[in-house]
């Protein structure tokens, strides 16, 4: 099973948001997606997740166009966690996670003990087991994000797509969440804001700018001083430690040294 975009473009109305993106997700990897605000990360992720149909090009799952596979079948292979999905409904953590079984349920196959077991297992794998009967609105941001991931896991996906999963979390929870995701036995594609996190956790990094995928490679190949200046408009030194990992050190006042990037609305 593979996940692939071929020359994909997506338009919002007449406005091109992403164009000509080609990308093949390798089984078992942790693929990071980076880029400035408005570079098309979220749009690319939602095409990759089958939530939006590409305006041009093809999105494929296992060499079949997603259009032919159908929403319900897609949802059994791809789990998607959006940025900041919240609800005012009074539901328990267990109920929120149970929603992930939606693509497997129908009138003929109603909820069963098997589904209960999958929900418990997913809760355990994000270390939220003891929270099963808590109400959703009593959870902290980091706990909510874990529950979302558990919900995606109950879809029993081959691919887990995360759109900026660490937004609004403190540093302790950011690292905890990424470590947890990395340890999960699924292929992960995550849009990340923090480039040091991308360097720490990703096997490969896809870099987007202006709606295009401009580079794809290992963290050492992508995270260079040159790229950071050209794409993000910041000055930084890259240090490589003895384990071959990159560390990025930003310079204060760096906005003046590089070309100033306009902050586009996503």
């Amino acid at each position, binding site marked *: 099973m593979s996940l692939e975009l071929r020359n994909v473009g997506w338009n919002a109305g007449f406005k091109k948001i992403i164009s000509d993106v080609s990308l093949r997700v390798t089984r078992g990897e942790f693929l990071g997606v980076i880029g400035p605000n408005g570079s098309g990360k979220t749009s690319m992720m*939602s095409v990759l*997740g*089958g*939530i939006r149909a590409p305006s041009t090009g093809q999105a494929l799952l296992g060499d079949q166009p997603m259009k032919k596979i159908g*929403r*319900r*079948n*897609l*949802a*059994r292979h*791809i*789990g*998607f966690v*959006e940025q900041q*999905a*919240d*609800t*005012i*409904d*009074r*539901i328990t953590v*267990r*109920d*929120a996670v*149970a*929603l*992930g079984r*939606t*693509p497997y*349920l129908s009138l003929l196959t*109603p*909820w*069963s*003990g098997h*589904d*209960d077991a999958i929900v*418990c*297992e997913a*809760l*355990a*794998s994000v*270390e939220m*087991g*003891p929270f*099963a*009967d808590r109400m959703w*609105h009593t959870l902290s941001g980091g706990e909510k994000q874990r529950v*979302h991931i558990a919900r*995606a896991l109950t*879809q029993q996906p081959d691919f887990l797509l995360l759109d900026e999963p660490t937004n609004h979390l403190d540093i*302790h929870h950011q*690292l*905890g969440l990424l*470590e*947890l995701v*990395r*340890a*999960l036995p699924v292929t992960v594609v995550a849009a990340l804001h923090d480039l040091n996190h991308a360097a720490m956790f990703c096997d490969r990094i896809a870099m987007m700018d202006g709606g295009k995928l401009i580079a794809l490679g290992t963290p050492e190949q992508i995270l260079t001083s040159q790229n950071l200046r050209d794409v993000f408009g910041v000055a930084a030194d890259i240090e490589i430690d003895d384990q071959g990992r990159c560390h990025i050190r930003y310079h204060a006042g760096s906005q003046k040294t590089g070309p100033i990037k306009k902050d586009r609305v996503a």
Partner: protein
Amino acid sequence: MFETSPVQQPVQPPRQSLAGRAYLVRAGVSLGALILLVGVIAMAAAKGETHIPLGTVLQTIANHLWQAGYDVDPIDAGIIWNYRISRAMVAAACGASLALSGAVLQALLRNSLADPYLLGISAGASTGAVSVAILGFGAGMVSLSLGAFVGALVAFGFVALLAIPAGRGAGAIILAGVAGSQLFNALTSFIVTKAATADEARGVMFWLLGNLSGVRWPDVYLALPVAVIGLLGCLWYSRALDAFTFGVESAASLGVPVRRVYVVLIAIAASMTAVMVSIVGAIGFVGLVIPHAARFFVGTRHGFLLPASALIGAVFLVAADIVSRIILDGQVLPIGVITALIGAPAFAIILCHGRVLR
């Protein structure tokens, strides 16, 4: 720091199988509400200007349903069967439909304030019905319903079109709904003022606040099937509605065909509202308050919430109709006045307790 290896923690299994617990809750609440509904319909048949003992009511019903052959005064029997039972049945169907529409719209639009009244559907249905009744595009029940139906769809189309450039958000659609309601209420007033005679105008105004007088069996044959089919249609999509808990994108990622669900369910909600408004006029607050009350009893899962909303809505409207008939001696209040008088404080209580909106 968190452990990097997946740690197996014991997760308490649910106290009882979720399916089993859910079934018990549903069975209990449904049975209770059904008994309550039958009871309140029997009450509605007994209460009124002339009080008829409950025993006579039951005998009359038995006579009609399975020719039981009880000896009942034919005048009493006529009042019970031809006036009060039919009226209570329509009230029940109407309450159920409005509450269902509210529950569905609240789930789809992710907004606790959504209801057919606020989204302009009721106002549009009124305009449509009034144009048929006063401007006279054909006569009879079907054409009035058709007028209301077309009016409802036009109004909702208008609201939806207004909401899209305003940002598609749940807030935008509510504001667009307010604008739409105002516009279509103004159109209704315009038509009434321009074309109606004084008598017609009085009748229409009474009807716009909700009026169950003059409801007979043919209305039941229209209202009841619409309510039942509407309930089944919504129930078919109950899992899809659950999937909207975290919004549209999240529903899509759970495999829900979002566009189809939107179109079908909004069409069902608009149709139910349109038919009910065409029979009894615009009755407010039922679609807004009842789903919140139902959530309080059975939670947010739509498999339970939808039937519970329908039953509670039915009971509420039949009870409101009883009150509207007996509260003033020798006079019938428009039922919309009662629902608003009860609904507004009830909604205020819900708001203040923060049980719904937090």
